[in-house]
């Protein structure tokens, strides 16, 4: 009898439990995302600010690229050229020092304020004076906090004049102005939110230029306005009805922060998101086989390489540098490890950039590598350490390289580490081998040419620390050639100059270039005209429609 009482009690409990579960599960069935909204699942935890003067990360570049407009934009049909943004036309003076931009008439910011040359000039002044990470893209033209109001100036309502310090290649200057740091911000709106600052040794100016406010707010004129951003959670964009160009078909674009590839895939399959942006090769394959889903991709300006520290005497031998380029199994890596997320590229300029050299002379050739090592007096091989951050695909590539190198008698010891940890070691030049990735700072060949084939001062305490410096590759000649290409005003000759630099790097550099990154996205079939651009800030969502 006692037992039956307990039984009754238990039954009640289980019934209660079942009821709770039922209530919890009794949610409405899920419809697709709203017809006027594009919902994307994307890891957006690298967004730390929405201020164009400070933002230098990947995901915010896309938000700013859609939310703001620049003087000129990258022509996505021919990425070696630029096309007008808010500028209708531009001209360069004879001496190559003065750039005059005529603005398109009648442009308004999302706020309704008119966009004038004054706003452009103030945006330059703001970025230069705040002097955050991306500011060098503008200050490399000789702009400083002291001279910027003179050098970047509004002559009248719709004429903006930029004066640079050297007669650079015009393509270089214009390419740099497509960067998000050149975005035009609404002077009136931002000034209303600027905070007064007391001038001191640390603060040269009596205002913060709206820095505190613009970090999480929006003051642009692009096809979309950024309505809301909650870090690591969500970013919401709305159509800007004041936009002068083709207005977006959709009312809203919502980015949801989802980090896990498998989770993104589930949400895409269920229809809770329209686009998934961080799909692993495995999930991507499943998505491409699903009849309701489609994929799209675009090569991006990020390249992956293995580099040899020239402070290591063995690795500094030219034969060893060359031998390493024969010890990478490019075919195997391309068909497995980076399938769908990258394509083999042996030159350091990304495909699509002005002057990019498309050449891939190297193949896995152990015999050839052995011959080279023998010539260097290293017949019996040698041992080196290899700093590898513990994520894919670099770990896989490093392990593949370890195996092929062993065939030539080189014993590679992999030291796995956290990304920031290996990077700290690399930046201090304490590595032997390092596997790195390099994204272009701005869409111009000078960005990577400066990184890979320029090293003005190889001393430990140098002020300019390029990738060549990090590997102690002392190259006064190539540094000069890089500089010359920067000042070459004829685009054709300039492109030739960069091709020559890449050829030189291909033959002699301590960089074993492996692949160029491809960005991929999975999407629902009813999403049309969704295209990824050549750079993050050209991942335009304006043309997207939904059926």
């Amino acid at each position, binding site marked *: 009898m006692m037992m039956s009482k307990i039984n009754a009690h238990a039954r009640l409990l289980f019934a209660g439990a079942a009821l709770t579960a039922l209530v919890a599960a009794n949610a409405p069935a899920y419809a697709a*995302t709203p017809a006027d909204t594009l919902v994307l699942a994307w890891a957006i935890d690298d967004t*730390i*600010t929405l201020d164009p003067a400070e933002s230098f990360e990947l995901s915010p570049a896309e938000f700013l690229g859609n939310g703001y407009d620049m003087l000129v934009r990258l022509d996505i049909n021919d990425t070696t050229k630029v096309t007008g943004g808010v500028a209708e036309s531009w001209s360069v003076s004879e001496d190559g020092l003065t750039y005059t931009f005529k603005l398109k008439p009648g442009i308004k910011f999302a706020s309704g304020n008119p966009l004038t040359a004054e706003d452009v000039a103030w945006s330059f002044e703001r970025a230069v004076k705040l002097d955050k*990470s991306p500011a060098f893209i503008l200050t490399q033209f000789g702009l400083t906090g002291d001279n910027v109001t003179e050098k970047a100036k509004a002559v009248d309502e719709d004429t903006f004049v930029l004066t640079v310090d050297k007669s650079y290649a015009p393509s270089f200057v214009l390419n740099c102005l497509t960067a998000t740091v050149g975005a035009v911000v609404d002077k009136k709106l931002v000034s209303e939110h600027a905070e007064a600052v007391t001038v001191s040794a640390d603060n040269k100016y009596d205002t913060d230029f709206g820095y505190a406010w613009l970090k999480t707010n929006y003051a642009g004129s692009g096809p979309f306005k950024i309505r809301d951003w*909650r870090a*690591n959670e969500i970013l919401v964009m709305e159509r800007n009805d004041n936009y002068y160009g083709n207005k977006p078909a959709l009312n809203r674009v919502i980015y949801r922060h989802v*980090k*896990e590839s498998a989770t993104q895939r589930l949400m895409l399959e*269920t229809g809770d998101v329209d686009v998934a942006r961080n799909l692993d090769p495995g999930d991507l394959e499943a998505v491409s086989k699903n009849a309701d889903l489609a994929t799209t991709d675009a090569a991006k300006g990020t390249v992956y390489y293995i580099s040899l520290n020239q402070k290591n005497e063995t690795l500094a031998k030219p034969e060893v540098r060359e031998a390493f380029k024969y010890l990478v199994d490019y075919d195997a890596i391309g068909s497995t490890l980076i399938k769908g997320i990258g394509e083999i590229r042996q030159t350091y300029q990304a495909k699509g950039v002005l002057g990019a050299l498309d050449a891939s002379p190297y193949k896995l050739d152990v015999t050839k590598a052995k011959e080279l090592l023998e010539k260097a007096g290293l017949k019996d091989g040698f041992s080196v350490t290899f700093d590898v951050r513990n994520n894919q695909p670099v770990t896989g590539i490093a392990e593949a390289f370890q195996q092929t190198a062993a065939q030539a008698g080189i014993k590679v010891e992999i030291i796995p580490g956290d990304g*920031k940890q290996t990077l700290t070691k690399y930046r201090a030049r304490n590595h032997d081998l390092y596997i790195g990735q390099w994204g272009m700072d701005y869409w111009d060949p000078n960005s990577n040419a400066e990184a890979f084939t320029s090293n003005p001062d190889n001393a430990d305490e140098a002020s300019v620390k390029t990738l060549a410096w990090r590997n102690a590759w002392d190259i006064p000649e190539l540094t000069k050639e890089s500089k010359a290409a920067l000042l070459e005003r004829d685009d054709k000759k300039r492109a030739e100059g960069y091709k020559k630099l890449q050829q030189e790097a291909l033959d002699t550099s301590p960089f074993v270039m492996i692949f160029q990154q491809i960005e991929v996205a999975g999407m629902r079939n009813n999403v049309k005209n969704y295209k990824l651009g050549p750079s993050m800030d050209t991942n335009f969502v304006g043309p997207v429609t939904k059926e």
Partner: protein
Amino acid sequence: MSVVSDTQPAPRRRRARSLVKSLLGFLVVVIVTYLGLLAVTFFIGRVIPIDPVLAVVGDRAPANVVERTRQELGFNEPLTTQFVIYVQKALSGDFGRSVLTTNPVMTDIKRVFPATIELATLGTLIGAILGIPLGVLAAVRRGGWLDQIVRIIGLIGYSVPIFWLGLLALLIFYARLQWVGGPGRIDVVYEYTFTPITGFYLLDSIIQRDWSAFGNIISHLALPSLLLGYFSLAYISRMTRSFMLNELSQEYIVAARAKGLSERRIIWRHALRNAAVPLVTVIALSYAGLLEGSVLTETVFAWPGLGLYITNSLQNADMNAVLGGTIVIGSVFIAINLLSDLLYRLLDPRTRAR
């Protein structure tokens, strides 16, 4: 009369003195714990072979920006000076700014912690409400089929990786059956109508009387909270069972049975009441563990909580956020310990007498 009034206050005074003493002792323990926590986290943060400036400005920043930032953040000062400054600031509740979000760390934690608390509280409630009766029944039916089932449930709960179980649950209940909401705390559809006030979404929707949002939030909470609830259930039921077995073999149970009390009364009133004392600690610790933020659950369910925040910060060498988060978790542990101590006093008359 006078004799009585002289003897009466003495024990009370003694008791008051012992209370002050134990309070003081407790305070000392808390302060030492905090200082230790601050020191350990601070020095670990500084000795790891990661350049903290790199985390702030990124790999692409030019050398002058790197140097200026190093100066601004005070990394050029000697380590001891840095520590003193850090402790001074921490005492006034300033843990610096997070590198990743650029917000003050406390602002960030105020934003992410409610998400974790909401999940952890529901999880613990589910775990305790189901786990205790299950444990009691398993103890009463020791060796019976119910005991075996509870054992199996517990074993699975212990040994199956939560990551895998979470994905599986998503696959079945969200992707296939569509019974529950998917990852995240709420559907994007509500982005325009629902505004977080307190950060506890359930509470917010009740305040705003937005019942459709309330239902949606529940449907998003269901899977992760049931999952966490299952894991704490596994733990709580096993512990309840062993505590109950211990109590049921005591002499007072035999005495109660001899008195002819009903078995139900003996189990639920007498035995469970005594087992409740250590159980409080078990539940409190399991709750504190969940409050720490269940990283894997939060990752799988894209739940913007504390666990995800700290892990993310750790991976990006965002030491301010890690330190601040650690202090908050430490405080939670200390607070919950204190609370369970107080509950002890309520439940166990013997601790009150001392």
